[in-house]
């Protein structure tokens, strides 16, 4: 008899649900994909419903519900923080405390989960178990990894008290070795700079990472002198005199502004050299801390492989530096490294406690199924959607699809690629992707401005056949979840002429034979694709390589700026029609923009999607 554990993360950001069967992830999704509210923090009712439906079960079939953090311990931290800041933090106290107390308050998060689950009408709610926030991260990092044993490092903003934890994973056990506690947090340091540079906290950190290569790290020494005291073993403390998050709802205060030459950039304001340099500086410090933490993880555990999770593990530049350093033979990063992955980790932790085994390690593969754990739609369902709305389309034989789509891509068209099960985690990995020709120098600006409607400084990422990754990138291991950055191989680089370009204009200077995916420092956020991990996407890349000689495609998420990645055929068709995507491929069905009827909406959809 199989044992099912349902994991839930909720009420902060990126709510999600996941089900594991006998310790193996079988379904997982973020609530935002269903609600269409980015980083949705509400109870993941639709994600839970999807997970149950995917397995054809109801709540009584589930052995236990695993919640991703301990609300009581978290409340004690919040209370200690507010008391510790008194008397300067009354505004924060007034805004925070009512949300925690009373019926429906966050302190009763487990009761809220119980009530929300009961209201689904899916039968009696099983027992609810709380795991600590970082234990959930650690479990999500180690248990689905391909390793029998590993060092495990979790780094994020904050959960209960821990902000950085070091674990030793062996078999089905995780041992906590050491931790760093709030308010000292590498994630919150990065978020403070994200905030100061005018981006949203818990959302815009990846933009800051993308901005870093435009700048010089001229503030790095200042950050190390004034803001963070880093010990040789990677442990650290922040100088809280420069941060405001203990006493208010903002990240930085006047001391921070004085240190870095004036007030923070306003949202959507012009980006100046200061923001470039601040981004480069905090990125450099983050990489240095992560490298020291990795060395300590190696020393304390004696392991040769490392597993990573927590929001900071989404910093794929820092991850790439750890790989490049050779401290570990290999690094595995949980694809849903942020709080959404906590739902999966909590469920895995409970499953292992209940005696589940990790049989996948014997096969040398991870247990994430390529992170394709979300909803899928059958050909019949897609056909019903298209026919029901009289949407013009062609249906191809499955064997003809890769060649036909490769031809479209090779001719410069931009393709919406909707296949298989939706990805779990923030990255589109070839199931809900927008694809283009990485060799095309105009592809980046076309995608940024006409498809994604996003900031022009942001680079795109390449998907490459795993068998040919070394021909294109200096990467010594697989990167199936697009969470490692590596340099474009020297053989693919082209001489850079001095065009006099500065700032964001640097992105227009070709630096390689795949300019659409090469950042201004010659790096790329690589996704390696195998036939095992994603057979359909692998077939497309193979067909593109056969047609063009190039096994690389631009792969960006199927959405516009501020919108969650598409989930359903309706979401995909809507995004297709709102943007300048040329061709939409859903399952075996191909839709050409030129054949579609005019698209109109009652209001301006762009005004309805809040900027991220």
């Amino acid at each position, binding site marked *: 008899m199989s044992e099912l554990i349902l994991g839930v993360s909720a009420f902060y950001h990126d709510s999600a649900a996941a089900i594991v069967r006998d310790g193996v992830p079988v379904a997982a999704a973020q609530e935002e994909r269903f609600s269409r509210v980015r980083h949705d923090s509400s109870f993941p009712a639709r994600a839970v419903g999807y997970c149950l439906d995917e397995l054809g079960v109801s709540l009584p079939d589930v052995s236990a519900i*695993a919640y991703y953090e301990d609300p009581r311990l978290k409340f004690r931290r919040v209370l*200690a923080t507010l008391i510790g800041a*008194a*008397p300067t933090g009354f505004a924060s106290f007034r805004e925070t405390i009512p949300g925690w107390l009373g019926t429906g308050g966050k302190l009763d998060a487990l009761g809220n989960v119980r009530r929300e689950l009961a209201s689904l009408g899916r039968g009696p709610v099983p027992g609810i178990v709380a795991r600590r926030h970082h234990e959930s991260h650690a479990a999500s990092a180690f248990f689905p990894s391909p390793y029998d044993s590993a060092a495990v490092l979790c780094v994020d903003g904050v959960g209960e008290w821990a902000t950085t934890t070091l674990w030793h994973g062996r078999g089905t056990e995780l*041992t*906590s070795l050491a931790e760093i*506690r709030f308010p000292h947090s590498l994630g919150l340091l990065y978020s403070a700079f994200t905030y100061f540079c005018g981006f949203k906290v818990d959302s815009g950190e990846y933009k800051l990472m993308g901005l870093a290569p435009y700048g010089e790290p001229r503030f790095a020494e200042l950050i190390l002198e004034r803001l963070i005291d880093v*010990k040789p073993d990677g442990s650290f*403390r922040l100088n809280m005199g420069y941060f405001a998050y203990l006493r208010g709802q903002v990240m930085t205060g006047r001391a921070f502004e004085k240190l870095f030459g004036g007030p923070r950039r306003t949202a959507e304001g012009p980006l100046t050299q200061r923001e470039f340099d601040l981004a480069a500086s905090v990125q450099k410090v983050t990489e240095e801390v992560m490298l020291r933490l990795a060395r300590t993880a190696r020393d304390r555990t004696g392991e040769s492989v490392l597993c990573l999770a927590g929001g900071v593990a989404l910093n794929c530049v820092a991850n790439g530096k750890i790989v490049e350093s050779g401290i570990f033979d290999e690094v595995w990063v949980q694809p849903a490294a942020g709080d959404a992955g906590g739902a999966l980790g909590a469920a895995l932790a409970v499953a292992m406690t209940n005696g589940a085994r990790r049989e996948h390690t014997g096969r040398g593969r991870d247990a994430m199924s390529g992170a394709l754990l979300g909803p899928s739609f059958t050909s019949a369902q897609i056909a019903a959607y298209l026919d029901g709305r009289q949407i013009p389309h062609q249906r191809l034989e499955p064997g003809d699809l890769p060649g036909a789509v490769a031809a479209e891509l090779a001719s410069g068209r931009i393709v919406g690629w909707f296949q298989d099960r939706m990805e779990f985690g923030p990255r589109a990995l070839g199931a809900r992707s927008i694809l283009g020709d990485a060799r095309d120098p105009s592809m980046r600006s076309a995608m940024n401005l006409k498809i994604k409607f996003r900031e022009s400084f942001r680079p795109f990422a390449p998907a490459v056949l795993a068998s040919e990754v070394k021909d294109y990138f200096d990467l010594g291991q697989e990167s199936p979840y697009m969470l490692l950055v590596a340099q474009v191989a020297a053989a693919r680089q082209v001489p850079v002429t001095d065009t006099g370009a500065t700032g964001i204009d640097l992105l227009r200077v070709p630096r390689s034979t795949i300019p659409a995916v090469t950042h201004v420092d010659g790096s790329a956020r690589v996704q390696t694709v195998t036939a095992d991990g994603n057979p359909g996407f692998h077939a497309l890349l193979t067909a593109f390589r056969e047609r063009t000689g190039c096994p690389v495609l631009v792969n960006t998420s199927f959405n516009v700026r501020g919108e969650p990645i598409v989930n359903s055929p309706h979401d995909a068709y809507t995004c297709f029609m709102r943007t300048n995507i040329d061709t939409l491929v859903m399952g075996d069905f191909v839709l050409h923009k030129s054949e579609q009827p005019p698209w109109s909406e009652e209001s301006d959809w762009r005004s309805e999607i809040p900027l991220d």
Partner: protein
Amino acid sequence: MATLLLGVVYFLLATPIGWLSRLLHDPLSRRRSRRTVSYWIVPAGRADAPGERSRATRITS
């Protein structure tokens, strides 16, 4: 009314406790020391302390 009540709790209860705790020790470990070798904390005595397998806490059933 709620703001008044919260103000009473904050200024008459939380503030004195905060002052007192900061006088007696460093409750949020805010002090930094160049002489300290490491800021790592070993989570001794916890369910997930070294050598002990972590256990779930069954909150409701």
